[in-house]
């Protein structure tokens, strides 16, 4: 413990090192504070049209995915036209908040080209910022859409112009050899007529775009439908829906500059250059933008534009570069469409693609303007033979139908139209040069029928031709025997068939006749005309002639038979079957079948001396040979008249009834009758009298007993008139024909008694006349009997004659005289009779005047029996 320890000097520390801690904390806090103030963020106000999708505190501001700020407030702007969105930006964003800085809202967007802003589905929409240059500012107007290019992307931005947007959209891809190399990043209207698209080419592909690159639209499907098949081409699936652009570049050109402008062509063909020229036409017809220009079927260009001009339409056309040398000064362009006809379809693909413009080579330097023809110019026109064919109606020939000779095409029909007078058809045809000599004078043409069915009594033949004929028709050349060739532009005929042609030529040599007939005579066109059972002509037609109330039958007789047409020629119609039954036998004549079907006419000859009527068609041979003249007779309906009933004059047949018809009133029958030619003139006077003769059986006998077998006939009594007629009203009873020399008078009695027509008048028991008919007197108190005395006895009766009734038996029983029975002949008992005596000799003074009247005495005055003047016939 002695050891003294060295004094320990303790230096009192003023401050413990622990005090560094608060200092550090203070420094730290200060730094934090400073930092916090520094990093507090920059208030920025952005004006958005709408606050949709923006939430206070939630919506962030991002730049390349990095959050650089957030929305702190949203307020409506003063003009109520949008919202002001206040952002608190990261302090580091300060340098970027300049005049050129752009803000826009990023919202999720799914399109065919991709899904954008998918992150926003979770993080919500955000505001994207694209820094820009310029002065610093804190108020911005939001962009409607994302700006075209994001600054981080390096590449080439080009401008594309197009007239329509089509299916292009932002995001539509740009392809180079089908590799996507970029995309459309924006589009906008440029002026009123153009759309400007901005496209971005990725950096690694930027060199592919040259200054002369051509861009075209590959949107959608490209369907190449032709008869060879259908080719569907598309760049990628996305282009079908979202559109796309493709481009091509030539290798040696300069690389495009940024912002270079290009035009978008509608398709590759258009884009790939060529030489331009204009086509002028009167009207656009079927040409339009896109119409192809073809040469020998190969597409070498197309129409790129069309404009209206004062005089028509002007097309801008473009020939592909590789075919540009084909164009020359005398090239010609014409429109060609699909040739659609039933005979086949030429250029069917043009139904889909539309018409094309065809092109022909020429020579000389290419011009800048050509006319667009509507038809192919015809180089062979000069050597072709053009003809006009005429036809009454179109024979089913269409434009373009072939003209054939022996089934070989030798030309074609250029046009079919109505002729100027609209009465027929005119065909313009052309005959190809090598066949022109086939067409000679009088050659004619007939249409080829694709299907001809020839049904005749010989059988049925069916002929078919090729399909083209069926659809388009074709015409055949039928040569004539003539050797002289036709001239260009000559007019030839087109006949419906070879037969008609032949007929036509035959007709030229035919003799035409016109017959009249009271009826249609069962004839139809083509009914044959025979002579001695040989056809010598035919009926052309049968017409009704209103004025004459008859039919006219037009005949044509072949020329070689003209000798048959003479003054004694007559025509009659043949019945299908004529049976001529007579007591001598039955003759049955069956007409040929053709005649039976169509009716037929026979030409016959009368005797040389006779003159026939060549203008009348007789109903039968007999009538014809008799040169019968038709008349019409009207009878009361109760007449028992039948066809074939003869017309007789005093028992001699002068005609016959052809037919009997009851007329509509049912009160009359009309008989069509014929009077034989040589008699006709005697019985056609207007006052000729026709009457029915029927058998009358009475006690006095039978009149016209033959009618009991033959039926009633018609009696006729000629008239005296100068005027002739063919229509007569017949009477029941025959009118008495007054003969010269006969004496006519009237007897009057108060009672007819047994007197009737035909009651004889006896003179000394001998019949000298008879009662013709009788009637009541006008006053009704007596009966008037009209009687006549035959001419050879007319001198026996004069004014002093007395007539009495001889009829019946007169029994006179007197008281003193006893019974006295007085009778005439048996005939008079049965049929009645009239007796006559004459007192004095007939002289000029007592000659009986015509139609004098006597009283019929009841009985004979015995005194009269003493009268016996001597009389001699004058």
């Amino acid at each position: 413990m002695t050891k003294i320890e060295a004094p320990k000097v303790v230096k009192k520390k003023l401050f413990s090192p622990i005090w560094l801690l608060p200092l550090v904390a203070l420094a730290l806090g200060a730094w934090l504070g400073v930092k916090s103030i520094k990093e507090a963020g920059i208030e920025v106000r952005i004006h958005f049209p709408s606050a949709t999708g923006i939430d206070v505190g939630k919506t962030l501001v991002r730049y390349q995915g990095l959050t650089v700020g957030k929305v702190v407030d949203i307020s409506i702007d003063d003009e109520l036209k949008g919202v002001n969105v206040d952002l608190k930006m990261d302090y580091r964003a300060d340098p970027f908040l300049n005049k050129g800085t752009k803000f826009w809202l990023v919202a999720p967007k799914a399109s065919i080209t991709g899904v954008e802003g998918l992150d926003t589905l979770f993080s919500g929409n955000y505001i994207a910022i694209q820094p820009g240059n310029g002065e610093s500012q804190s108020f911005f107007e939001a962009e409607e859409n994302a700006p075209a290019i994001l600054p981080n992307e390096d590449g080439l931005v080009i401008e594309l112009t197009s007239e329509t947007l089509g299916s292009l959209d932002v995001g539509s891809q740009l392809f180079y050899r089908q590799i996507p190399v970029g995309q459309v990043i924006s589009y906008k209207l440029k002026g009123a007529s153009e759309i400007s698209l901005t496209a971005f080419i990725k950096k690694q592909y930027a060199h592919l775009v040259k200054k002369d690159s051509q861009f075209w639209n590959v949107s959608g499907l490209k369907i190449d439908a032709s008869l060879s098949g259908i080719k569907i081409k598309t760049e990628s699936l996305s282009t079908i829906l979202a559109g796309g652009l493709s481009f091509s570049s030539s290798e040696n050109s300069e690389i495009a500059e940024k912002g270079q402008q290009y035009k978008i062509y509608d398709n590759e063909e258009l884009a790939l250059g060529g030489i331009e020229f204009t086509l002028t036409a009167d009207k656009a017809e079927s040409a339009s933008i896109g119409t192809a220009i073809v040469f020998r079927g190969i597409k070498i260009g197309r129409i790129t534009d069309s404009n209206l001009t004062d005089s028509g339409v002007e097309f801008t056309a473009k020939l592909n570069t590789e075919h540009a040398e084909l164009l020359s000064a005398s090239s010609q362009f014409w429109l060609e469409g699909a040739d659609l006809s039933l005979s086949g379809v030429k250029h069917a693909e043009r139904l889909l693609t539309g018409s094309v413009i065809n092109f022909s080579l020429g020579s000389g330097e290419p011009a800048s303007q050509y006319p667009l023809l509507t038809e192919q110019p015809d180089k062979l026109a000069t050597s072709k033979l053009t003809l006009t064919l005429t036809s009454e109606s179109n024979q089913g020939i269409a434009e373009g139908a072939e003209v054939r000779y022996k089934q070989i095409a030798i030309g074609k029909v250029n046009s079919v139209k109505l002729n100027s007078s609209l009465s027929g058809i005119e065909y313009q045809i052309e005959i190809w040069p090598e066949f022109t000599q086939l067409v000679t004078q009088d050659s004619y043409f007939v249409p080829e029928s694709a299907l001809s069915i020839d049904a005749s009594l010989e059988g049925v033949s069916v002929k078919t031709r090729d399909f083209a004929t069926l659809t388009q028709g074709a015409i055949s050349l039928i040569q004539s025997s003539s050797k002289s060739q036709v001239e260009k532009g000559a007019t030839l005929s087109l006949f419906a068939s070879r037969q008609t042609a032949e007929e036509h030529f035959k007709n030229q040599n035919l003799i035409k006749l016109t017959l009249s007939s009271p009826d249609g005579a069962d004839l139809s066109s083509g009914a044959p005309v025979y002579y001695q059972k040989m056809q010598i002509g035919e009926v052309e037609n049968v017409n009704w002639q209103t004025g004459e109330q008859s039919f006219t039958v037009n005949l044509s007789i072949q020329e070689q038979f003209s000798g048959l047409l003479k003054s004694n020629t007559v025509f009659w119609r043949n019945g299908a079957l004529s049976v001529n039954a007579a007591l001598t036998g039955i003759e049955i004549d069956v007409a040929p079948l053709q005649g039976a079907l169509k009716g037929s006419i026979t030409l016959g000859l009368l005797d040389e001396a006779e003159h026939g009527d060549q203008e009348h068609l007789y109903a039968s041979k007999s009538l014809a040979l008799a040169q019968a003249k038709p008349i019409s007779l009207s009878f009361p309906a109760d007449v028992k008249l039948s066809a074939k009933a003869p017309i007789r004059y005093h028992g001699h047949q002068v005609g016959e009834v052809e037919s009997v018809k009851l007329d509509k009133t049912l009160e009359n029958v009309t008989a069509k009758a014929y009077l034989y030619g040589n008699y006709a003139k005697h019985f056609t006077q207007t006052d000729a009298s026709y009457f029915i003769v029927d058998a009358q059986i009475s006690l006095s006998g039978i009149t016209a007993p033959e009618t009991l077998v033959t039926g009633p006939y018609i009696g006729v009594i000629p008239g005296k008139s100068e005027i002739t007629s063919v229509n007569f009203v017949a009477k029941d009873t025959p009118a008495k024909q007054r003969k010269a020399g006969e004496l006519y008078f009237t007897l009057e009695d108060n009672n007819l008694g047994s007197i009737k027509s035909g009651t004889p008048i006896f003179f000394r028991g001998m019949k000298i006349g008879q009662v013709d008919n009788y009637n009541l007197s006008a006053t009704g108190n007596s009966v008037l009997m009209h009687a006549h005395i035959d001419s050879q006895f007319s001198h026996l009766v004069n004014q002093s004659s007395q007539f009495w009734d001889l009829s019946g038996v007169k029994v006179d029983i007197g008281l003193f005289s006893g019974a006295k029975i007085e009778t005439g002949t048996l005939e008079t008992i049965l049929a009645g009779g009239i007796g006559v005596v004459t007192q004095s000799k007939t002289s000029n003074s007592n000659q009986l005047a015509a139609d004098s009247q006597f009283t019929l005495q009841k009985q004979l005055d015995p005194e009269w029996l003493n009268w016996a003047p001597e009389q001699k016939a004058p």
Partner: protein
Amino acid sequence: MSNIDENAQGKEMGLTTCPSCNKLNEQKQTHCTRCDSPLMVRDTTSLQKSWALLITAAILLIPANIYPITMLTDRGRIRHDTIFTGITHLVQSDMFPIAIILFTASILVPLLKIVGLTIYLTAISFRLPISKKMLMVGFHIIEWIGRWSMLDLFVISITVALVNMGQLLDAKPAPAATAFALVILLTQMAAKVLDTRLLWDRLESKDDKNRSTKSR
């Protein structure tokens, strides 16, 4: 041992306790005879240290409350929460008990601790006439309750560890978390580092009076 003054202090008897093993050593000893720990009768620098730590904590309390303590990414939306906004958020979500716990642990306790320590240290440094006993009770309370302030950080650390679903849902500690942790740590240290014996030395005379008078 009945004659021993109940208020007698070791240092007056030439004794000192080992801070580590609590063995009474003579004051001349520099090191504990048992555990060889350095012996000091009184750590005169502890007050300074405590003050320094307290001030640091107080300074750090500011950023800890101002800055966000968590960064929550919810479906891409990032939300920064300070302690206070976190609590208000809980209140808005009708989670009062949790809000109260959080408020107590995260705001009230650190604040009280700092205030308490300040009072304590002030009382020591400036010999304020405050009951020695009360101060001690307060000190123990501060010391005991202070560790619960770590609750907030604990929650954050667990959340950060568990909730990690990228853009959908993610939680990350924000700068305030560090500051807050430091505040807790520093206040704890400030309490720990303080040689409470100084309190007794400095406040003895007056307090005795107070105590004796009171006890009387």
